Structure formats: structure tokens, C-alpha cells
């Protein structure tokens, strides 16, 4: 199968007064058509910046410094802003974390949808767009007659459904969901995940699910990429990842999930703090917190180790 998205050696730096924040520092991965990838890491590890980099929406003072983002055989980093605008929303779209503030408070829901459709397909008439919008909203569990309401008249879960509708109505090839359920309560979380799953099966789109919550990626994704301090440390298919995490950081993450069977066991947290991305640790960035650290970890960057098919880890333990 051909890959839809191929990111290689991507570096996105923020040039702040404190120094250069290396939010994304040499990230490479690929994504096949129709595949769902979970991008997991703790807050501040650069996973959201990675998502924004793919859309070329990194806010200043951030800049993409190096690398390639090949989307459908074309390098997005060589495209003009105008060409990028045609891709955003139509071919790659994004769902944001906070549904409460990601809709324009003075625009009705139908105007959001009509504007989106007319931006990308200018030949569509308003009534056609409206028709399409109402059909799609019904599919997502929103009564079409509520299209005349304003965003604040909806609950958080409903708003996230509307955001999903906006992201999916033009049937994009790739959807980047940046913590789509973090701001919602558990029951609504489950509904939204269920909805995403259903839509993914139906529309065959690729999905990058950015999250810090390992428990939600299990059901929804085919593969998992673990990110730590601006770098990807492990990529594995979801099943084998849960069976046997290879990177010490992944292991720590899995141990810190509460589970029903292990309720008597104490939860283990990873000792230490996430590193400062202005002055990241030398060598392997995880070594100050790693239980298996060897002297070499502090000196050299860990090598890429291939384990079986489709499985990679950056660690001296396996290399």
C-alpha cells in the first residue's frame, strides 16, 4: 500500500526570547491511506505542534526549519500559502481540543458549513450546500433544524460533533484530531470516539489522533507513535504495543494507566519531569528518567532499531 503522508526529518522550532524551543526535532513517520495513527505523548512534547506543522499553521515565533512533508506525492513545504489554503479543510482537516471556543460565536451553524463548502467548492449553490449540510449533520446525530442556532446554544459534545462535521463534510483524505475528547466528560468522550470510529470506517479517511491518553487510542488506531521531548521514540502497531512496549518511556506510560484488573497494584508514575525543550538532555532525551539508562545513553543519540515488521524504536536497549 502506498503511503498518503510521509514526514521525514521534520524540525519545527520556536524562536523565543529564552532561546530556541525545539518543539519538533527531527520527526519521521509515514501514514498509509485509510490508516489511523495515534500520536501519544505528555503535554508539551510537541505533538500538537507536529499536527499544526502538517497543515503549515505553526503560529509565530514558530517556524518549520527543516524536513519534508510529502502528502499524496507532493511536498507541502514547497507549496504557496494559496495552494495550502486549498488543501486545508478540503484534503487535510483538523479537529481541535476545545469545542467550546472553536466555533465562531456570532455565526450560525449553517453559516459555518455553507462558508466552508463555498470556500472549497465555489460552484455549489447555497441551497445545495444547505441540503448537504443537513444530511451530514443528521448522520452525526444533530437534528438539521438546529442549524439555525448559534454555537453557544449547544453542549460541548454537540459542538464537537459540529466540529467533526466541519472537518469531514468535504470528505478529506486526512483528518488530524488534536485531543478531540480532552475537554469532554467521559460519557461524551465515548460517544465522540464511537462516532469517529464509525465515520472512519465509512469514509475510509486517514486519521492522526493526537492525545496524551493511551486509553483512547487503543480502540481507534491501527498504529501508535510515542513522542517524547520533540522526538518520536517508538512506532508500533497498536496490538503489539499494548502487549509489549519496547521503549522505556512507553513502558512507563502504560504502567501509569489505571486498569480494573490491576486495581490493587499501585499506579506507577514516571519519575522526574518532562525536559526543557530549550536545553534538552544530551544523547537520548529520556535518559535522566530512564530506569535502564546506560552511560552511552547520555552521550549519543539512540539508533533507530527495527523490530519485526512495522515496528521501530529509538533505544540502545534493543540496538
Amino acid at each position, binding site marked *: 500500500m502506498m503511503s498518503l503522508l510521509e514526514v521525514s526529518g521534520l524540525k519545527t522550532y520556536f524562536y523565543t526570547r529564552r532561546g530556541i524551543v525545539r518543539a519538533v526535532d527531527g520527526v519521521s513517520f509515514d501514514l498509509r491511506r485509510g490508516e489511523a495513527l495515534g500520536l501519544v505523548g505528555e503535554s508539551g512534547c510537541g505533538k500538537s505542534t507536529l499536527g499544526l506543522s502538517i*497543515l503549515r*499553521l505553526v*503560529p509565530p515565533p514558530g517556524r518549520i526549519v527543516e524536513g519534508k512533508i510529502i502528502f499524496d506525492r507532493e511536498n507541502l513545504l514547497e507549496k504557496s500559502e494559496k495552494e495550502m*489554503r*486549498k*488543501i*486545508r*479543510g*478540503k484534503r487535510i*482537516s*483538523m479537529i*481541535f481540543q*476545545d469545542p467550546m*471556543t*472553536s*466555533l*465562531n*460565536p*456570532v*455565526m450560525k451553524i449553517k*453559516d459555518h458549513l455553507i*462558508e*466552508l463548502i463555498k*470556500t*472549497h467548492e465555489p460552484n455549489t449553490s447555497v441551497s445545495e450546500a444547505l441540503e448537504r449540510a443537513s444530511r451530514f449533520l443528521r448522520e452525526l446525530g444533530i437534528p438539521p433544524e438546529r442549524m439555525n442556532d*448559534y454555537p*453557544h*446554544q449547544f453542549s460541548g459534545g454537540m459542538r464537537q460533533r459540529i*466540529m467533526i462535521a*466541519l*472537518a469531514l463534510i468535504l470528505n478529506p483524505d486526512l483528518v488530524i484530531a488534536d485531543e478531540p475528547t480532552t475537554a469532554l466528560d467521559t460519557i461524551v468522550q465515548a460517544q465522540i470516539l464511537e462516532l469517529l470510529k464509525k465515520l472512519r470506517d465509512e469514509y475510509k479517511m486517514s486519521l492522526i489522533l493526537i492525545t496524551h491518553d493511551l486509553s483512547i487510542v487503543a480502540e481507534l488506531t491501527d498504529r501508535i507513535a510515542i513522542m517524547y521531548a520533540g522526538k518520536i521514540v517508538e512506532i508500533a502497531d497498536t496490538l503489539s504495543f499494548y502487549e509489549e512496549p519496547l521503549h522505556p518511556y512507553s513502558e512507563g506510560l502504560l504502567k501509569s494507566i489505571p486498569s480494573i484488573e490491576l486495581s490493587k497494584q499501585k499506579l506507577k508514575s514516571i519519575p522526574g519531569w518532562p525536559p526543557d525543550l530549550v536545553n534538552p538532555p544530551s544523547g537520548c532525551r529520556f535518559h535522566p528518567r530512564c530506569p535502564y539508562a546506560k552511560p552511552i545513553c547520555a552521550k549519543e543519540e539512540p539508533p533507530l532499531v527495527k523490530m519485526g515488521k512495522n515496528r521501530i524504536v529509538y533505544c540502545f536497549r534493543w540496538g
Partner: protein
Amino acid sequence: MNRTNEGKSSSRFKGALLQSIFRFSSLRSLKGGVEWYMMIVGMLILVFFLVMAIFAPFISPYDPNAMVGKPFLPPNSKYIMGTNQLGQDVFSRFVWGSRTSLLIAGLSTVIAFIIGVPLGLVSGFIGGKLDRVLSMIMDAIYAFPGLILAIAVATMLGPGILNVAMSLAVVYAPTYFRVIRNQTLSVREQLYVEAAKALGAGRMTIMSYYIFPNVIPSVVVISSLCIADAILTAAGLSFIGVGISPEIPDWGYDVSNGQRFLTYRAWWIITFPGLGILFTVIGFSLLGESLDEILNPKLRER
């Protein structure tokens, strides 16, 4: 003994009165719709003056510039608002003056809006060097005392209603610019703007559909305040003689001119045009505040 009782009961009465007023007002705000009453009252006041301005030739009994009676006549059946120091009919001047005041206020607001709002939007949205330069210019203008700046511009432009309106617009444009720019800066960072970008919206779309409607409610409020202020500044200009020539009746001019005669106990010369200014200002404020609440869909639901 008797007195203390009386005092007690009167204070109790006061308390009860206050309470009932409080209850009444809080009940009304609970029911919602106060803003509609505000709007209706504001509109009524403004429509009243607008009708007066439009039909001035039919309403005013005398030529506003002609000497029609003895000077300093107090209000009577013939001159219902009395006559001024030149024997002109204060009522006729009052009626005609509404024309000038509304015209100047309206024009200056429109011009200030046209200058300040687009510049503020672009400056706040695009940022960078353009923003710095524009902000510096606007702050420099803002730093001048309004009346003095208006005098300077009006002197350059010469007298006339349009020129006065322009010189007032120069004074008030920075207010619009600053409010719009600062609002734009905060709205620009909202997630819905980023979401719009992520869905492929262009700069013009974002400015006109996402930022402009979200910053405009604050303009409604400041414009009602600026209109009020503009009427007073226009009066100051007329007083100094760089504004409108005295043969055009104007409330501001009459107030500034008439205050000299307060010592002769001729209160009517300034009271009526003064009330005219006061009510116009109240009308605009009521309209502005109520529009702010009605237009903003979020506030409306509260």
C-alpha cells in the same frame, strides 16, 4: 418620643421603598427584555429629534436668525422658550439646531468609523511593522487634547458643516482604531480563528466573517459615547468661531453663547439647547447599550 417614632417609621418607609425598587428592577432584569425597553426609549428620543430636524421649517414658528421680539424675554405664550440676547426666538433656534447637531454628530461618526475601523482591523490582524507605524500615528493623535486638535484641523479646513465633521472625525478616529485593534488582537488568538484557518479560510474571510462581527459590539458602545462627545466638541468649535458660522443655528453655539447671560438670570437661553444636547446624548447611549446587548447573541441568552 414622638419624633424618634416618626424618624423610625420614615426610615423604615425608606427601606421598604428601596427594597421594592430593587425588587422591581431585579425582577425586570430576570424577565429579560430590559434592553428592548432601552432601545425603544432611545429610539423614541432620537426619532423625536430626527422628525424635528427634518420638519424644522414647518415646526419653527419664526426665522431662527431674525430678530422677532425684545431680547431676554422669558418663556411666554408667544415665545414658548423665550428670546435670546438678540431677540431671536429660542424655540425656533432649538428646532433648527437639532438639524445641525444631528448632522454633525452623524457625519463625524461615520467618517471616524470609516477611517478607524478598517485600519484597526488590518493593523491588528496583520501586525508587524504596519501595526507599529499605524499605532504610533494614532497614539500621537490620541495624545492631543481633543478640542485643541479639532480647532487646529477646523482652522485648516475652514468653516462649514462637513469640515467640522471631518475635524471631529480626526479626533475620534483613533478611539475607534484603538478599540478595534485591541479587540482584533484578542479575537485573532481565539481558537475559532485558528479552526477557520485549518479549514482553509482566507485572510479576507477571516477578517470579515470571524473578526469583524466579533469586534463590532464594542464599537456600538464607543460610538454612542463618541457621538455625545462630538456634539459637545462641535459646540466648543462653534464657540471659538472656527466651527459653524453663527447664522446656522446650533445647540452648541447657543449654549456657549448663552452662558454669559446666566448672570442676567436668563436661564432659558442655555437650558433648552442644553436639554437638547442632553437628550440626544441619552438617546444615543440608550440605543448603543441596548444594541450591544441585542446584537450580541451570547449576551442575549443570559
